[in-house]
């Protein structure tokens, strides 16, 4: 599945002049973005920066006031099958009467199309996805009886079963423990290894360098987007978060990233 070195990287996801407004108030302002294929990209920015809105506008879930969004050159309507989506975990009612395996199979409803019911093949695919997120023994568990981390992995499995080329994940690490976070990161890396493009809304600045090879900083307007090394800088962070975050980069050589310090305060 690995690409030959000399093939130029294709652009998986393109945003041009995107503006989104809620009731006349812009949540995203004139965003331009190009995301190459096969990368793991973090989207960071403060609360209310428009990170979720960016995903929703990309997937036609909120109307765009201006601009275009393309997936391998196609509109979302044309490229629907190429796109997988993990919404913010809090966006649904986890007391809904259904089981883990049923939720995962929902990822296949699009491919099934109108009226057709999921059957044997869909069940098998869902189990395979549950295997990846290590939830097989919870398959028949009611979703109201899951922990936050298990809910998150259920949503991840639902996206995996979509077998997409480009994934959008809204805070997949929210409220998961360190072990689960590691496991999810491994899954994301594995997706990248298979040439998929994964775009992840992320809040923990400490782990950005470790997890993502590209990063987009957002605060209504686009602050910066590019390779993590050049983009995840104190200056850009300051621009995105205002004076509220100061970033003191590790001055030593030797790649001991754990020494990077993030001070959050007013």
């Amino acid at each position, binding site marked *: 599945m690995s690409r030959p070195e000399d093939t130029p990287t294709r652009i998986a996801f393109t945003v041009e002049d995107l503006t989104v407004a809620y*009731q006349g108030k812009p949540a995203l302002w004139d965003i331009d973005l190009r995301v190459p294929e096969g990368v793991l990209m973090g989207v960071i920015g403060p609360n209310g920066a428009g990170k979720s809105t960016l995903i*929703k506008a990309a*997937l*036609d*879930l909120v109307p765009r006031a201006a601009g275009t969004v393309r997936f391998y050159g196609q509109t979302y*309507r044309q490229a*629907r099958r190429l*796109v997988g*989506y993990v*919404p913010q975990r809090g*966006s*649904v*009612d986890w007391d*809904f*009467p*259904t*089981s883990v395996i049923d*939720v995962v199979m*929902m990822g296949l*409803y*699009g491919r*099934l199309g*109108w*009226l*057709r*019911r*999921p059957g044997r093949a869909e069940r098998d695919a869902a189990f395979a996805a549950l295997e990846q997120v290590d939830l097989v023994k919870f398959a*028949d568990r*009611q979703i*109201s009886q899951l922990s936050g981390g298990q809910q998150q992995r259920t949503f991840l499995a639902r996206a995996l079963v979509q077998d997409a080329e480009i994934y959008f994940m809204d805070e997949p690490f929210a409220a998961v423990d360190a072990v689960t976070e590691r496991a999810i990161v491994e899954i994301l890396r594995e997706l990248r290894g298979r040439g998929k493009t994964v775009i992840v809304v992320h809040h923990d600045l400490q782990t950005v360098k470790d997890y993502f090879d590209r990063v987009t900083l957002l605060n209504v307007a686009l602050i910066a987007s590019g390779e993590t090394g050049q983009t995840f800088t104190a200056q850009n962070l300051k621009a995105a978060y205002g004076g509220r975050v100061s970033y003191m980069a590790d001055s030593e050589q030797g790649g001991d990233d754990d020494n990077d310090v993030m001070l959050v305060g007013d």
Partner: protein
Amino acid sequence: MSRFKAADRRIWLLIAVMALLALLFVPFSQHALGVEYDYTLQTVALGGVLLGILSGVVGCFAVLRQQSLIGDALSHAALPGVGVAFLLAGRDAGALLIGAGVAAWLGVAFINALTATTRIKSDSAMGIVLAAWFGAGIALLTFIQSSPDASQAGLSRFIFGQAAAIVRADVVLIAQVGAVVLGVIALFWKEFKLIAFDAPFADALGLRANLVGALLATITVVTVVLGLQLAGVVLMVGLLVAPGIAARQWTHKLNQMVILAAVFGAFGGGVGAVLSAVQANLPTGPMIIVVLSLLVFISMSLAPGRGLIWAYLRRRRDHQRFAYMREHDIDVRP
């Protein structure tokens, strides 16, 4: 796995208990209340049962979408339609139903327009429409009552419901339309389930949530309009959502919840209709609500897993068991 099998058995047991209760209710009502199951009452009871099934099933989705109030808004919004239809077409039952349906539909459209174009939240929008439409309806009906036309008497039954007014033709209509509504639900089961759980995801997949939602709203309007003469506009929402709320307590599976809601709805609708027939002019809506509220109350207290009594017993048992284990140094940690 065996735990789920046991849970499934419990649902069947519960359905059997409800059937038994319904069977016992017949001789009870004959002897204690002096009800006579003549042709008229059979018709009324059958109408109540069928409407209960229909509302129970349709109402589950309103409950799960946390839109219980939509049923209330819909039924109240139907009232001015009844008044207008009466002024235009007189007592014709079909015209009254169509008027009710159109008015309810306009109410929904207005709610959607309000929430889409203003900052008003959907529950407030429903409240506004509910109050405005109902007020207009009451004013209209009062005007009609005061007019010299002698044939207006039948309209007040739309406010609190009057099962006794149900005739054979109504039951046939309910059965036919009900079959279509249930067929739609069976057909669009997957889509209804998805938009009830995660509407944006349905949109992302191309299963357009607003279309599916409109279909769901349409069958809800149809159900409410059919149910009006049984339960009345004021209490129709109870017939719609109470069976679903009660059923939700007993199961974690959507299909079981819907089946149970149908059973509870049938019981509430049937028993309520018969009880209101005991005495002339006893409104049916309040009777149905009394029966259904009882079912909701019992379900909330008794249902395994969620019920209050159950939760209390389990807490006590755990407390005793773990105290014993700590005392005897039995380690049960996973």
